[in-house]
């Protein structure tokens, strides 16, 4: 039994390389994966669980949206066209992210860096575009309390933007960490961090598509 446990550790030499600030004080967290670990990367698992709660958050807003929409005073506002452009930017950033992830998988540093940079800039562009959309609506005299639809629009785009901002910070951190060269362990860490980042980023892209459709239907 003991032999089998260690054998299994060695079968996954690259397991769980997400750098914890505390790994020094808690040695050998990898040992645990010898038990009945569900998936190889503990951080990836944690991220999926986090995404589940974020999904519930937006599900709650959706149900509130549907309830409020059935009220007699519901008047949809027409959404600014720039949202289409923003959507395109965000989709492109998901593509560049995926290209970066492919580089990361092959443990290449150079391509990874540029694709990550591209995603960051595209993401930033999306956020700026969303701010512009707010400005345009406000210029038309549609403010937060103007109608229930506009209230939901501002709050939901704001909340999504807030999550995206967190993603951008993560990306910036990653860019900072990805250095050309570096030892193999470092590159494994980069790969896993890129994976996490990409999962989160695609989730936010999907979430935006969903919100965009819901808000456009009015």
């Amino acid at each position, binding site marked *: 039994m003991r032999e089998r*446990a260690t054998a299994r550790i060695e079968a996954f030499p690259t397991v769980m390389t997400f750098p914890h600030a505390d790994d020094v004080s*808690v040695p050998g967290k990898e040992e645990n994966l*010898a038990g009945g670990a569900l998936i190889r990367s503990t951080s990836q698992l944690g991220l999926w669980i986090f995404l589940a709660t974020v999904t519930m958050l937006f599900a709650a807003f959706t149900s509130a949206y549907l309830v409020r929409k059935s009220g007699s005073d519901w008047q949809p506002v027409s959404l600014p066209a720039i949202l289409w452009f923003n959507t395109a930017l965000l989709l492109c950033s998901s593509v560049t992210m995926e290209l970066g992830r492919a580089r990361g998988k092959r443990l290449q540093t150079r391509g990874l860096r540029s694709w990550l940079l591209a995603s960051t800039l595209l993401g930033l562009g999306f956020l700026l575009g969303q701010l512009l959309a707010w400005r345009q609506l406000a210029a038309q005299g549609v403010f937060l*309390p103007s109608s*229930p639809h506009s209230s939901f629009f501002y709050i939901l785009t704001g909340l999504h933007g807030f999550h995206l901002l967190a993603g951008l910070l993560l990306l910036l951190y990653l860019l900072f960490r990805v250095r050309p060269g570096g030892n193999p362990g470092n590159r494994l860490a980069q790969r896993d961090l890129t994976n996490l980042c990409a999962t989160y980023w695609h989730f936010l892209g999907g979430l935006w598509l969903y919100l965009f459709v819901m808000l456009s239907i009015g």
Partner: protein
Amino acid sequence: MASTVQQEPVTHRKQGFIRRYIFSTDHKIIGIQYFLTGMVMAVIAGFLAMLIRLQLAWPGEKWEFLGALFPAGMEDGIMKPEFYLSLVTMHGTLMVFFVVSFALVSGFGNYLIPLQIGARDMAFPFLNMLSYWVVVPACIIMLVSFLVEGGAAASGWTAYPPLSAVKEAIPGSQWGQTLWLLAMALFIVSFTMGGLNFVTTVLNLRAAGMSMRRLPLMVWTLFIAAVLGLLAFPALTAAAVMLLFDRHFDTSFFLPSGLFFGNKLLPNEGGTPLLWQHLFWFLGHPEVYVLVLPALGAAFDILPCFTRKPIFGYRITIYSLYAIGFLSMIVWGHHMFVSGMNPYVGEFFSIGTMAITVPFAVVGVNLIASLWGGAIRLTSPMLFAVGVIALVGTGGLGGIFLGNPTADIQLHDTYFVVGHFHFMIGGVTLFGIFAGTYYWFPKMFGRLMNEKLGKLHFWLTLLPFYAVFFGQHFQGLGGTPRRYYSFTKFTFLESLQGLNLFISISAFVLGAAQLIFLLNFFWSLIKGAKAGDNPWRATTLEWAVPSPPPHGNWGEKLPVVYRWPYEYSLEGAPEDYTPQTVSPEEGQVTT
């Protein structure tokens, strides 16, 4: 990479006092921090309960010393009605989120999960530390709200709009309510970080051989509680965001058209207060299970140790926990039978509620059957664990009445409800915390708690508890409404005045009895008898390490698990308990 890690010596970098005990990432320290914070908040929330009962026993009395303590709420020592409502609101909020959640879920959860599954720490220790330090400002904001203009929030722990949404509605709805919402938001952020850690750790960091089917039920219940919390709390987050916007930015999510306050027409239009109730109770009901399940888990872990026999129905209990977890997400409407909902929808929620009593009864019966034929030793932890069973039974009985709309229309918002939920989220959880404390204190601090004081504490808690909260059922049947600051003006309640006074006096005894616990706790910290590694001769992993366990929990090697957690009185075994780490060669195996 893994192999290099394994060769690393297990001696740890020396850490300063602050990194070790204040901004610590060690799950044990964080667990104890949560536990002690919960204890402080319990003293405060309990004190508020005493004030509530004081007012109800002698409404309008003058209490000079309290006047000095609360110059605004108790001017000249006489309690104002709006202050009474602030007290009820803050008592409920603190007890649910800042006492039971802290001590039972976050406290025991953080302390025990890694130890019981054989891990060195939680999956994300840094996140864990953050989760505690986010909750500290939450506590401070909640408490400071007593001092702001208008006083603390006064719309109940359920914060129903319009009362909570309109600043003019009640003094507590000015800054107090905003601070309440902010503190709750911080609490939810913290719970999310903690819950992520619980779930990830249990799924991914179990020691070799520790399959899900070998987890102690304490871990199982904490795991299910964390999953429920992660899925249910976002609904309250969404509701709180919308309420904040209604309060401060003139949106109309919850506020209907045509509301007048002080001759002023509010600008809001078309919102529905019922939306809040749905979102709130989507969290509120599962939250009850978040709090109650770990108390049951503690009882399941403690019973076999003091009966010297395995628990009954381990596997069925796990299935029942699944069923309870699932059903608890779809019964929230039973809190809203009188809100004017469609009776057919009410019927759905009623059937769901009745359905949930089935797995709950299974768990209860398994607890009782775990006592059957055992060599029972009534130590303090055991007494409180048996108390948990009694309180689940009593509280569950009241729930059957409330789950039927026909009965609930009469009982809703009466003291029947107050009595019922105090048995469940008040009693079961509190007894679970006490049972757990008497049981795991030796592991946490290396010393035993005093048995004599423990037993005294038990009887002086159990009897007044039943006096107070069973009595409240009868008050409720007699029609006594909830959240009223005095009952002297109603002739139909005159016959219940004696009972009312009796309840208040019992409540004071109950409150005073808790001082015995505090005394015992702190006295035992310093003077308690040395415990040794395994004072109860128990089987689960936490007893295989020194008390208190060192940083990193396990020495050089992680433990390997060979059997289920309740291996007592195994035939042919050298002792009447066989720890989970004993291999087949060293002792007989079962599952």
